[in-house]
């Protein structure tokens, strides 16, 4: 074997942190239910998020039935339609995507990828999941309370969110706020763990600049979430007080049901500022883990090192920072001071620069790579295309003059579903196909996987591409039915019916995926420890699935970055991060 070219290894630094004391479960309950093992917590998070996500999926079918075939289904009335919209949006954005990326993938991958035995505070990590579960249960309970869930739209704008006439005014809105507050408390406990684990509990040799981009994405997103969720927390508390105690933080004086309401002097705009100060970073809280994961998928399955690693890291950080100063681009038509639009449009368009860097780097990673069209790779490619599409319509909506006529139309719906619905979901699915072997020791069935990919990918385009066109026609969003509006041609109605049929088909095709998950658990082909021949640490565990404490007796030592694929002269086309360089002295002592 030839000498492997490698820069910058002089020796292994001494361990700075003594080995961690793990909690060792003594019973079935503490092993599988009240577990303090991040991997079990990750699976709990993922299953809960998927379960509530399926509820949101069914809600989207009901919405599409109504939109595609108005008047046909008597069991959907206008109030219910609004409730479906609200719950679909809230569940998908927060309870599914945020929880799955950070609570699910974060918990599973961070300790394994940084070479830790577990999160730094496993007990707090466990509490995080149980509070999250409570939040989900409170949210789900709104389907069964008098008046049903809130129909205020996922943005929950006051004044209408808490006024009579909005569905769910009795209990729905109260429970929604309570659930959000619980979610934020639970997330904070988990998020602190993820951040401290990445910063302070890496194994020897694992500098920040050797972290896989997956960890960088999840880490940055978690930091953002810790700084953005406070705004939602405050907005939820204040809206709850407005609803329960009759304070007027957000409520102007207005006439409700023919009577002057008890409210007065509050500012609805204040809520919008607080909400979007959370809401815009939230987009990137979902997107950054997806960026990170997709970088690793592409590099692994194209057998080529990621192009411009350092720039990829800085782009993630820059996007994270910039996303805190763009929030009011959601408010161009809100009546805020108009010149703010100039500032926020500028910052919004600046975000395109680091984002474009990332897209170029993904493409350049693929260029002349040894591309294996495995299922994870297909989803990763699907992500890039979808994300570029969604990002380009973002340029439309980021400009004030273009946004104003497009506001509240189906164009907006198409845009955000492409960019933060379909694109991150593509990554979630690809990531599940990629890491399922590590979690279970078995491969997912590839034939079912390919079928799943093509139906999902093509279906998503058939659903959301025509929606742009509907939006340009002026078809409004959140409308129960379009009626006989003259500006909407009949072709728009047939297009709506078409979209609905495709949406139902794509929705049902996800059942193939769920079946695949269950089937492969028992019948899947045994994967071995490293089926994708990947370099990162989680594939180098002594056991698959990794045991309690992840690493057996000794922690791994990291000698190289995460992307040594197809290194010229190396025996294999991948070199694991913990493989020592040959023809060099391993340890030159602590002081080197």
């Amino acid at each position, binding site marked *: 074997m030839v000498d492997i070219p490698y820069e910058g290894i002089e020796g292994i630094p001494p361990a700075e*942190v003594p080995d961690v004391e793990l*909690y060792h479960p003594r019973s079935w309950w503490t092993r599988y239910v009240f577990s303090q093992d991040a991997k079990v917590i990750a699976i709990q998070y993922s299953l809960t998020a998927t379960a509530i996500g399926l509820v949101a999926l069914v809600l989207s079918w009901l919405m599409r039935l109504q939109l595609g075939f108005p008047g046909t289904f008597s069991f959907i009335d206008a109030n219910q339609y609004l409730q479906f919209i609200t719950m679909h949006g809230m569940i998908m954005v927060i309870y599914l995507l945020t929880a799955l990326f950070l609570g699910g993938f974060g918990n599973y991958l961070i300790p394994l990828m940084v070479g830790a035995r577990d999160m*730094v505070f496993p007990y707090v990590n466990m509490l995080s999941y149980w509070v999250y579960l409570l939040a989900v249960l409170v949210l789900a309970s709104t389907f069964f309370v008098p008046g049903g869930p809130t129909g205020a739209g996922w943005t929950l704008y006051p004044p209408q969110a808490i006024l009579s006439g909005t569905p769910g005014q009795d209990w729905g809105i109260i429970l929604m706020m309570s659930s959000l507050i619980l979610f934020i408390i639970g997330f904070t406990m988990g998020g*602190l763990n993820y951040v401290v684990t990445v910063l302070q509990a890496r194994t020897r040799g694992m*500098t920040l600049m050797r972290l896989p981009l997956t960890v960088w994405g999840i880490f940055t997103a978690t930091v953002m979430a*810790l700084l953005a969720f406070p705004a939602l927390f*405050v907005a939820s508390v204040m809206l709850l007080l407005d609803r329960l105690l009759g304070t007027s933080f957000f409520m102007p004086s207005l006439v409700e049901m023919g009577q002057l309401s008890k409210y007065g002097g509050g500012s609805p705009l204040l809520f919008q500022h607080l909400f979007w100060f959370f809401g815009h970073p939230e987009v990137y809280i979902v997107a950054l883990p997806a960026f990170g994961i997709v970088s690793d998928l592409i590099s692994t399955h194209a057998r080529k090192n990621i192009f411009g690693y350092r720039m990829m890291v800085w782009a993630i950080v820059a996007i994270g920072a910039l996303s805190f100063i763009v929030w009011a681009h959601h408010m161009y038509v809100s009546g805020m001071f108009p010149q703010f639009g100039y500032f926020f449009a500028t910052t919004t368009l600046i975000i395109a620069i680091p984002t474009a860097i990332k897209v170029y780097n993904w493409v350049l990673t693929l260029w002349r790579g040894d591309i294996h069209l495995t299922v994870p790779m297909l989803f990763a490619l699907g992500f890039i295309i979808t994300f570029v599409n969604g990002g380009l319509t973002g340029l439309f909506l980021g400009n004030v003059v273009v946004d104003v006529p497009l506001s509240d139309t189906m164009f907006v719906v198409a845009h955000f579903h492409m960019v933060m619905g379909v694109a991150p979901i593509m990554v979630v699915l690809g990531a599940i196909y990629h890491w399922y072997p590590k979690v279970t020791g078995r491969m997912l069935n590839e034939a079912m996987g390919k079928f799943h990919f093509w139906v999902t990918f093509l279906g998503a385009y058939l659903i959301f591409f025509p929606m742009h066109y509907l939006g340009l026609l002026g078809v409004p969003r959140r409308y129960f039915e379009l009626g006989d509006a003259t500006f909407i041609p009949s072709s728009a109605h047939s297009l709506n019916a078409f979209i609905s049929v495709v949406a139902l088909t794509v929705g049902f095709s996800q059942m193939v995926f769920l079946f695949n998950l269950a089937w492969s658990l028992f019948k899947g082909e045994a994967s071995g420890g490293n089926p994708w021949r990947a370099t990162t640490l989680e594939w180098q565990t002594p056991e698959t699935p990794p045991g309690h404490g992840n690493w057996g007796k000794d922690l791994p030592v990291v000698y190289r970055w995460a992307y040594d694929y197809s290194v010229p002269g190396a025996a294999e086309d991948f070199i694991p991060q913990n493989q020592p360089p040959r023809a060099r002295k391993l340890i030159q002592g602590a002081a080197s």
Partner: protein
Amino acid sequence: MAETVLTNPGQSTAQLEGWRGIAADWASDQRAFKNVSWGKAMMWIFLLSDTFIFSCFLLSYMTARMSTTVPWPNPSEVFALNIAGKHIPLILIAIMTFILISSSGTMAMAVNFGYRRDRVRTAILMLVTAAFGATFVGMQAFEWTKLIMEGVRPWGNPWGAAQFGASFFMITGFHGTHVTIGVIFLIAIARKVFRGDFDVERRGFFTSRKGYYEIVEITGLYWHFVDLVWVFIFAFFYLW
């Protein structure tokens, strides 16, 4: 993890200057913050997040106060007390502030004795801190009662903008909750200190981890933060 391990960080990165040096330091091996334990790092990051919560509360209050068309009640009148026939503005708040700042002093002493492993003094000083905190919360309860008797409600008050009562109860209530949690935290840790848990390295009931005297300092971080927030509330709500 065990007590802080002192290392000699950054030998290979010492030559780098400017931004590259900063990046290299932060990105260095194993730990970004050298000699900072997990617990302490976690508390600092939590406090950063909590800062954002209080900032949002205070900014919302300021927005309400600046945009209301109804006059804002004069705080120095509202929070005045008649003591021995004298009308003293803001006296109660002044005493409360004094008590809370004093509790920061006893807390700092507790941290000092904690690192000297002086079990009894540490516990006593922590309990004194907790007592100051409880007094603060008690005086806040008195203040709330007084205002409620005078007709201040979250939805209105006799003197002006309704948002006055709303912001007051919300912000002081949220801060008071923090102080109360801090008092409970202090008492729990003081009990452990007094029992000698950190001398015999007794394992936690839930976490099965050893405890260290450093937890006194971590409690202190939280406590000082709560005090600091109060200074901002004092400045923005009572003095403005």
